[in-house]
């Protein structure tokens, strides 16, 4: 342990010195599911692609090309970003509830309700979206009304379980935003749905 102290001091010193010089440091890290995407860091002097986890680049000025990606240690990431990471909220969750017909949830979807309530509680969420959709059977008007009623029925289910109605925003898309693109007048169970987003 004691032989690690000088190293961390050195890291902090480097950061302080680096900090005075000014610049932008960008580090690509795995997301909460462990997946790493890809980024491009560019300015008028050049561009660099980063696609491996815990690789970064440090750009000194807008007229200096971004250097090639280099590994960034766990210690450096912690020293620089622990404050920002410590306040990072849980990512929102999405649920799809499907309907047998009209306003009747499928048994599988009905069983999801406790999980949705748990997610709301876990996040102390006050920003819940409930979005109604239909399949393409019937007129535009009929389906708009049906999607409004579907969203309302899910909102009512949540409110009956103690969710504050002021925290729920319901919206409705009728048959305009199908999950599965179909021709008109197609009975498609996967399109008869309400999406719930818990933020």
């Amino acid at each position: 342990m004691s032989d690690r102290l000088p190293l961390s001091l050195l890291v902090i010193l480097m950061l302080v010195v680096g900090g005075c010089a000014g610049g932008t440091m960008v580090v690509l890290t795995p997301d909460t599911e462990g997946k790493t995407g890809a980024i491009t860091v560019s300015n008028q002097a050049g561009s660099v692609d980063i696609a491996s986890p815990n690789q970064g680049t440090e750009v000194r000025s807008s007229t200096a090309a971004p250097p090639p990606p280099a590994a960034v240690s766990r210690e450096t990431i912690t020293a620089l970003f622990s404050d920002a990471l410590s306040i990072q909220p849980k990512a929102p969750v999405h649920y799809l509830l499907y309907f047998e017909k009209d306003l009747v949830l499928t048994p599988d979807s009905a069983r999801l309700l406790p999980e949705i309530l748990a997610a709301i509680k876990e996040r102390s969420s006050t920003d819940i979206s409930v979005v109604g959709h239909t399949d393409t059977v019937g007129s535009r008007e009929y389906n708009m009304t049906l999607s409004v009623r579907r969203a309302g029925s899910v909102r009512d289910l949540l409110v009956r379980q103690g969710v504050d109605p002021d925290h729920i925003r319901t919206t409705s898309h009728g048959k305009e935003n199908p999950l599965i693109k179909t021709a008109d007048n197609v009975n498609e169970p996967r399109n008869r749905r309400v999406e719930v987003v818990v933020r």
Partner: protein
Amino acid sequence: MRSFLITVFAAFLVLSGNLPGMAAAPEHAGIVKSLAGEVAIERNNAPLKAEANMKILKGDHIRTGKNGKVGMIFEDDTVVSVGPNSRIVIEDFLFQPSEKRLSFITRIVQGTVSYLSGQIAKIAPAVVRIETPHATVGLRGTHVLVKVD
């Protein structure tokens, strides 16, 4: 009579421009989800003390003091958290997927930021970027840490 009323209601929805994307005209870009210490949101050059669940609008400046930090969730599921002594600006935010109207530009003036990209970066990565005084970061999904000084 009932179907007449339904038709009138649906016609109202259509005429008021809410079809097909009733959800697609969000009045806000995101919300303040978590915060500690001194955090302010500057809107139209006037600073507001940030509070949990406060709405964030396009154009807002988010600023943290030396003990301040803040976590935000945007409408497309992007999660942005900001460390102390930082300032970021929501330069542009547009999330209307059904109309393919998408944009998310964040400017980091100073400080430390954790950025977990959301749906816009999945659907249209070309329109998502983080700008700093020294460089522009384009994202094709995932988690990025940025420090600007």
